[in-house]
């Protein structure tokens, strides 16, 4: 199915489209009903087989749902720029997308973005399928050569690039029959300033409730800590290497030694007494603040402990009183 496209079109994809598709997919997946239990499943099968259902194997997890939608954008000359996307309902009876809804949506978007045209459609999955061709052909009356954007929702940590592929349709002769097939096209990512900021924001937001000062401080300190750790390990490697060289296990390499020596000569950046003074003063200030914070922490724990203790053991406290619930 996938060979390089020869149409000569350059595709530019905006991050908004990818975020939209992934959001659509995530929503649908999380709203799915939980899978049917194994016993009821085997009951429907077991009666036919005449066997008990209890020993049936666990049912395989349901296949991930496929979501569908339209992509819109601008085509200028040979450059196709995909700006935005919206969702569509897939009608499995007729095996096509809901045409009325699509037209209505198209009208609405035309009012807001007069320049944008329907450029194609999107779906999720690992690879393009035969049934996709029907949808593709159905869209050909809106756009002569629609574009098919496929997002692979499977999370693969080893994969370095984006799991998005763009397909075009071309007429090829296979076994003597001219057929439309999907061919792979390359694309580039194009960002507007607003998109860049939001992507950056999402990328750095690791904790779920992120944004409070404490988590930001923790994230900042963690990144500094990992940077220092990496520096430490690199220096250790260098040190180990130099020691081995000194012992004679490794032959002398003068160019490397020269580099190390120049690095060392650059080292004492600030060595004056005034710097020491200021540095120590600031260091002790920070330590004092930490000390104060620890004190407050301890005091509050102590306070709670004493209150609990008094509630449990103090004979002279309030008897049987109901404190106002505020």
């Amino acid at each position, binding site marked *: 199915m996938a060979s390089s496209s020869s149409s000569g079109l350059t595709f530019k994809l905006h991050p908004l489209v990818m975020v939209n598709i992934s959001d659509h997919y995530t929503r649908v997946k999380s709203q799915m009903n939980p899978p049917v239990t194994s016993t009821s499943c085997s009951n429907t099968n077991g009666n036919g087989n005449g066997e008990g259902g209890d020993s049936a194997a666990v049912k395989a997890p349901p296949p991930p749902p496929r979501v569908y939608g339209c992509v819109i954008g601008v085509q200028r000359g040979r450059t196709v720029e995909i700006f935005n996307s919206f969702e569509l309902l897939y009608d499995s009876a007729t095996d096509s997308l809901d045409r009325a809804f699509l037209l209505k949506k198209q009208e609405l978007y035309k009012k807001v973005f007069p320049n944008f045209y329907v450029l194609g459609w999107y779906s999720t999955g690992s690879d393009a399928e035969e049934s996709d061709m029907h949808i593709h052909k159905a869209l050909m009356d809106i756009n002569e050569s629609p574009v098919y954007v496929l997002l692979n929702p499977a999370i693969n940590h080893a994969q370095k690039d984006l799991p998005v592929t763009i397909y075009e349709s071309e007429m090829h002769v296979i076994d003597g029959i001219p057929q439309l097939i999907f061919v792979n096209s390359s694309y580039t990512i194009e960002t507007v300033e607003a998109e860049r900021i939001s992507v950056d924001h999402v990328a750095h937001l690791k904790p779920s409730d992120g944004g409070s000062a404490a988590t930001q401080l923790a994230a900042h300190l963690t990144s500094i800590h990992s940077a220092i750790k990496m520096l430490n390990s690199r220096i250790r490697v260098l040190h180990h290497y130099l020691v081995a060289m000194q012992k004679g296990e490794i032959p002398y390499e003068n160019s490397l030694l020269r580099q190390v020596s120049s690095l060392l000569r650059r080292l004492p950046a600030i060595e004056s007494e005034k710097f020491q*003074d200021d540095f*120590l*003063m600031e*260091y*002790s200030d920070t*330590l*004092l603040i*930490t*000390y104060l914070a*620890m*004190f407050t*922490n*301890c005091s509050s*724990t*102590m306070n*709670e*402990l004493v209150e*609990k*203790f008094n*509630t*449990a*053991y103090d004979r002279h406290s309030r008897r*049987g*009183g*109901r*404190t106002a*619930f505020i």
Partner: protein
Amino acid sequence: MEAGKRKTEEEQQTLVDRKRKAEISEPPPPTTTTTVTMNAVESLVTQIQGLSGSPNDVVALHAHLNKVDEALRGESARLLPFLDQLDPSIHSLGYLYLLDACTSGPVSKEQATNLVLITSRFLTSCSTEQIRLAPEKFTGMCKRFKDQVLLIEAPMRGVAPLLVAVRKVQPSSEHLTSLHPDFLQLCLLAKCYKTGVSLLEDDIFEVTQPRDLFLYCYYGGMICIGQKHFQKALELLHNVVTAPMTSINAIAVEAYKKYALVSLIDNGQFSPSLPKYASSSAQRNFKNFCQPYIELANTYSNGKIAELETFVQKHREKFDSDNNLGLVKQVVSSMYKRNIQRLTQTYLTLSLQDIANTVQLNSAKEAEMHVLQMIQDGEIFATINQKDGMVRFLEDPEQYKSSGVIERIDSSIQRLMTLSKKLTNMDEQMSCDSLYLAKAGRERQRFDFDDFDSVPQKFNM
């Protein structure tokens, strides 16, 4: 070793024969008391030697030793030579029982010298795991050791062995054992305060006997006074004075007297009222026993040295009988210091004669001595110009910029972190305490206004 053993066995066999012959003519002994013959002790010794290898054997040995303990005590006089056959570091448990039986009876002065030697050697070399199987016996024996050391009037000899003993018997450095106050008492009598201070560095979290805590804090306070660490002494004495007690005891009364004096030396003031968390019996009764001290505090706050000195002279015997005369003298000298310190806040430079007049000293020479002493102790910062007899007061040169300061803060933070962890643990334990949960459940509002689910009226524990 074998031949020797057999030989003594033969000797003892003849002893036993003679004894048996004697017994036949006597009425048979009552069956409740088992007379332990030398033979049995010998076999016990070999048993100890055999069973001190692995931990399981030691436990079995412990059970056996408990059975024969009573009988051993009856033979206390004759057990001494058997101790030489045992090695204190390997056969610690058996050695302990034998030594304990040896010392259970009254001990004369000559015996005491010998016993002190043996016990100190034992304490320094015994094995910790075996000792921990019989802590009460060990503690009792150590207390008797302390008595013997006092009997021969050489408290210094008991200090090092007792310190080792304390470290061996306490389950962790946070536990207070009954040996702590005995050790501190010996330190006080031997005047080696530094060793005592090393024990006071530990923070105590677990206490079994309240009397131990009282004595520990009282003696600890006295040691700190001896070392002139008045702040820590104040802390320790404060613990005694505000400790929970249903009825006051003599230790607390004495501690209250010293507490008053130390707070005068350190803070320059003393309020006789105790904080709210002190026990009610303490709040009511201390004043009755410590009247002269409270009056001393009142006189001190007036700020007139002559009055203070006449007061001290008047009640001299009372202070002396409480052994507090030295402290009282320090209180008087602290008054001079405080007055000189007050001068630093008003004047930048002052002549020695003026200082003598203001502080009511006799001469400029005395004033110079006082100021010099205070500069040395670090209580004021000043320079004395000998030519014209002027004293110039300076600011505290400490900038808090050195790495020493940083180390101090860092170690304090570490201590605070461990304390915080302990507090959270205690808090969690308290939340699970059944008494607390019962009371907390009872005090809940019957109906929650937000939702109309019926809240359970009380927890049935």
